[in-house]
């Protein structure tokens, strides 16, 4: 039995688990060399990509063989890696790192292979636009129409601009490199942090495997978005902070401290939420260190927490005051939802698009399993590691899991918020779950069952990871790329939308206020450089041009209106036709609601491709004329 091997940090104030932890039982998978597992994972990537190809050639996610191939590929990627990490056969630190890297790279390749010709994930368009603006204007805080708050957090645009400038690569290629590198760095730094803190690369590997159950990890956290980059800095800061606390030499401690401070600054410049979470993490470990009697560690983490807090406050005060108004609706929504939950037992949260029953069951089971593992992990942490500041800190942090559950069930947009928050909440959760898992399988009653228990554990962990994929992004209705779907994120980004958006930039110039459906909305921002509007459903809700609609257009300073005849033929699987609209569409749009713009004097029909039409409302005088 091998465990607690591969200590990366020197023994100092941080006390590790006081007993050797044992990994789960051996299995057939444990005999497979890591190189062969890498090969199997690569085959898995190819098989899933073949599933994507079938989707593209046919009915997208409705293509049975395509979906089957996709999940077969995922099983080929996940099962061997999980089996090897969970087995008790010797696994060196290098092999563990290889397995974690293989899992991360394989999932990232699948993300790339989903849309290999250009960005299709909506948030990526926002940063595409930001990067192009920065390259062309030479300015740091250029207005980003799609993501005004992102204007004040230009980290990813800076890195991408530097890479493009040095290499001459396109924004897409450079974006993939930056996002992929940042994602891999985050995962590996997290692994190193776990190793330094727990001092067992085995448990660290298991914890990281469990972390792959976070719904946004393989999708949102590997996209070309500012959070992806900031997470790399968060992970690096965690390692640097821990090393600055445990290194023997004062000189080394200072050096790591400098790195931690650089990471804090980079995080603050790059992403708001991640910088807050980093501050919270530093405070948490400082408090836990104080509680466990590790004064020097508490002092180090406390000082870093103060630096982080001051950086965040100064950044908001002097650079990004909009951050407060940006988060106000979210915070208000959470508070109102919790209030409603307390008063009436119902959150009044709007209904969301329902997932398949199997996904719901998988999600429910995952919640149950993780909650039980957290409870067992907390018990273990208190019983056996109560003088270990990191583990006690993670124990305190795991309370976030239950807050996350509350947000998921009790607030508007709870599903999305909880999914995004899970990236941070899962960090303490997976540490405790790994401790619990290791302890459970080493308990006497369980050990009697040997390989059967290993199989059950591997199956359970794989189910958690599959749950993360099934209930993550893309959702089930666009699991595979395929034909166009109306107003449905990636599935709406087709050549037609790209051509129309390129046309707007070329012939209308940038920055026009355009009313458009949710499908073309992000493309207009990214490739069109336009300023498409949110909450404009009223322009599409009447069959005729009434004074009320005209007044609405005037009030919103609408310059162009986009219509798409496909909106009259099918419902949006995402639920809404228009950006910012919270009412779920139950019937298709009346064709007259779109064609009415043909009959308004002064409204020029400036673009027509047979499906998408743009109307110019400016000549009508409904909106202020441009200078």
């Amino acid at each position: 039995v091998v465990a607690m091997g591969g200590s990366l940090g020197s023994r100092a104030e941080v006390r590790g688990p006081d007993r050797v932890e044992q990994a789960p039982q051996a299995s057939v998978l444990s005999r497979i060399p890591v190189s062969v597992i890498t090969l199997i994972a690569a085959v898995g990537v190819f098989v899933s990509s073949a599933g994507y190809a079938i989707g593209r050639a046919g009915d997208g996610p409705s293509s049975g063989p395509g979906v089957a191939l996709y999940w077969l590929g995922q099983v080929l990627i996940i099962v061997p890696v999980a089996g090897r990490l969970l087995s008790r056969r010797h696994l060196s630190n290098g092999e563990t790192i290889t397995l974690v890297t293989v899992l991360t790279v394989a999932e990232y390749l699948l993300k790339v292979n989903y849309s290999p010709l250009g960005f299709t994930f909506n948030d990526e368009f926002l940063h595409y636009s930001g990067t192009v603006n920065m390259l062309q204007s030479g300015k740091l805080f250029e207005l980003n129409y799609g993501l005004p708050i992102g204007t004040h957090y230009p980290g990813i645009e800076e890195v991408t601009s530097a890479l493009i400038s040095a290499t001459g690569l396109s924004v897409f290629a450079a974006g993939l490199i930056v996002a992929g590198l940042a994602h891999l760095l985050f995962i590996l730094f997290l692994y190193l942090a776990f190793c330094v803190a727990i001092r067992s690369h085995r448990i660290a590997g298991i914890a990281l495997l469990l972390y792959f159950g976070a719904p946004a990890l393989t999708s949102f956290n590997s996209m070309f978005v500012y959070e992806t980059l900031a997470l790399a800095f968060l992970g690096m800061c965690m390692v640097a902070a821990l090393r600055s606390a445990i290194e023997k030499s004062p000189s080394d401690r200072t050096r790591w401290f400098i790195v931690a401070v650089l990471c804090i600054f980079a995080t603050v410049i790059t992403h708001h939420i991640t910088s807050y979470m980093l501050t919270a993490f530093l405070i948490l470990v400082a408090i836990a260190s104080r509680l466990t009697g590790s004064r020097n560690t508490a002092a180090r983490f406390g000082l870093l927490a103060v630096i982080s807090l001051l950086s965040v406050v100064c950044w908001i005060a002097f650079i990004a005051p909009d951050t407060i108004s940006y988060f106000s609706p979210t915070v208000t929504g959470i508070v109102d939802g919790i209030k409603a939950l307390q008063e009436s037992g119902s959150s009044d949260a709007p209904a969301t698009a329902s997932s398949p029953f199997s996904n719901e069951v998988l999600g429910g089971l995952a919640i149950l399993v993780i909650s039980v593992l957290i409870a067992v992990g907390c018990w273990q942490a208190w019983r056996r590691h109560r003088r270990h500041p990191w583990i006690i800190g993670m124990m305190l942090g795991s309370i976030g899991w239950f807050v996350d559950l509350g947000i998921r069930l009790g607030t508007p947009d709870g599903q999305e918020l909880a999914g995004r928050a899970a990236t941070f909440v899962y960090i303490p959760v997976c540490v405790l779950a790994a401790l619990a898992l290791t302890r459970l399988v080493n308990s006497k009653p369980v050990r009697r069952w040997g390989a059967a228990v290993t199989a059950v554990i591997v199956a359970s962990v794989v189910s958690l990871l599959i749950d993360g994929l099934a209930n993550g992004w893309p959702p089930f209705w666009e699991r595979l790329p395929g034909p166009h779907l109306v107003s449905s994120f990636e599935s709406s980004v087709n050549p037609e939308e790209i051509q129309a958006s390129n046309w707007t930039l070329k012939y209308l110039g940038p920055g026009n206020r355009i009313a458009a459906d949710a499908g073309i909305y992000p493309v207009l921002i990214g490739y069109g450089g336009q300023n498409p509007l949110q909450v404009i459903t009223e322009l599409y809700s009447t069959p005729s041009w009434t004074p009320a609609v005209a007044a609405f257009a005037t009030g919103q300073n609408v310059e162009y209106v986009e219509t798409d005849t496909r909106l009259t033929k099918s419902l949006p699987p995402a639920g809404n036709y228009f950006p910012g609209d919270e009412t779920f569409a139950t019937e298709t749009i009346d064709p007259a609601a779109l064609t009415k713009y043909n009959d308004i004097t002064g409204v020029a029909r400036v673009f027509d491709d047979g499906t998408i039409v743009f109307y110019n409302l400016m000549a009508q005088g409904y909106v202020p004329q441009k200078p």
Partner: protein
Amino acid sequence: MYRRNLDIFVAGGLALLGGAAYEAHVPGPVQVVLGIALFFAPGYLWSEAILSQRLTGVERVLTSAGLSLILPILGGFLFYGLRIPLFRSAWVGLLVVLTLLGVVAVAVQRLRQPPVDTRQVPGNAPQGPRSRIAGWQIVVYGLAAVIGIGSVAFSVKSADAQKFPGDTILSMTAQPPQMKAPASVNLVVPEGDPTQPNVVPNSNATQANLVVENHEGVAETYTLNLMKNGKLEKTWSIALANGQTWQTVITYTTTSYTLQANLYLLPNLIKPIDYVTNGEGNTQLYMTPGKNKYDRGTAYLGVANEEGVTKQYRVELLKNGKVAKTWNFTLKQGQSWQSTVAYTKNETVADLYLLPNVSQPYATANGVKAG
């Protein structure tokens, strides 16, 4: 000594080559390779400078890569503070300067302290027999890499081959007098109020770009008809390969007449596949002389409102240039008005005014052809 500092020379040299490649505009692949070296060199050197040589291989790679991402962010912020515009040359300059400073920092660092025995580095301590990767395993890893990269190539091909419904773009956009043909694409956001972008309104335009883009997936032949006040003004026959664009500049206004361009995909000349307008509505004025015994000497004078909204009209009937009769009326969208008038060829003319504009007729009919 030389071997100990070889990494500094390599990193510094590659970075300088990367900077030179940018200046010399070397071919793409060379610039990509050298540019990547330039991008990561500062991170490696500063990781050496700050963390000395006390790291394991994995930690060195990770911290180097991490610092490579951090340094452009902090450097860019510094440039912003110094009011240095962050154009491409500035980014390349920043990376080169960071690299050179890194070379100096590492050199000073290494001069100040003796070489570190890497076996003493935490985490580098031997853990039993050193594992070596067998030859066959290298082959397996290589095969895995080939399959992984192959999956990307396969996906690119699959995505490229995906069938989408073809379409043809037809557009007619006002080209204000000061705005030349849109040859360049500029994403720079204008200074000032973002709600007031810098495009000139249609009403000031005297010309327009009429554009046809073929995205049908195959070569197509089109007929484009430009209608002025409902009458055929001009016809173009256009043959376009897939992805090809046809463009012309036409005289344009939004205030005195209607313009509509209808695009037909041959051989269908009955129903246009696309159409665009200048936004003016369409009011039809007609004066049709009677041709039968009972209506000879009269004409049917009519107005049909297709403006999309309710309009007020004035019709003046002129005999030999003098106003003989005037009608004022209001028509809703889709409504029409008609009257019978005494008619003499070449003497009777009807002028239609769109109220409140009575200075210039919107349309004129003389019984020979409709206005």
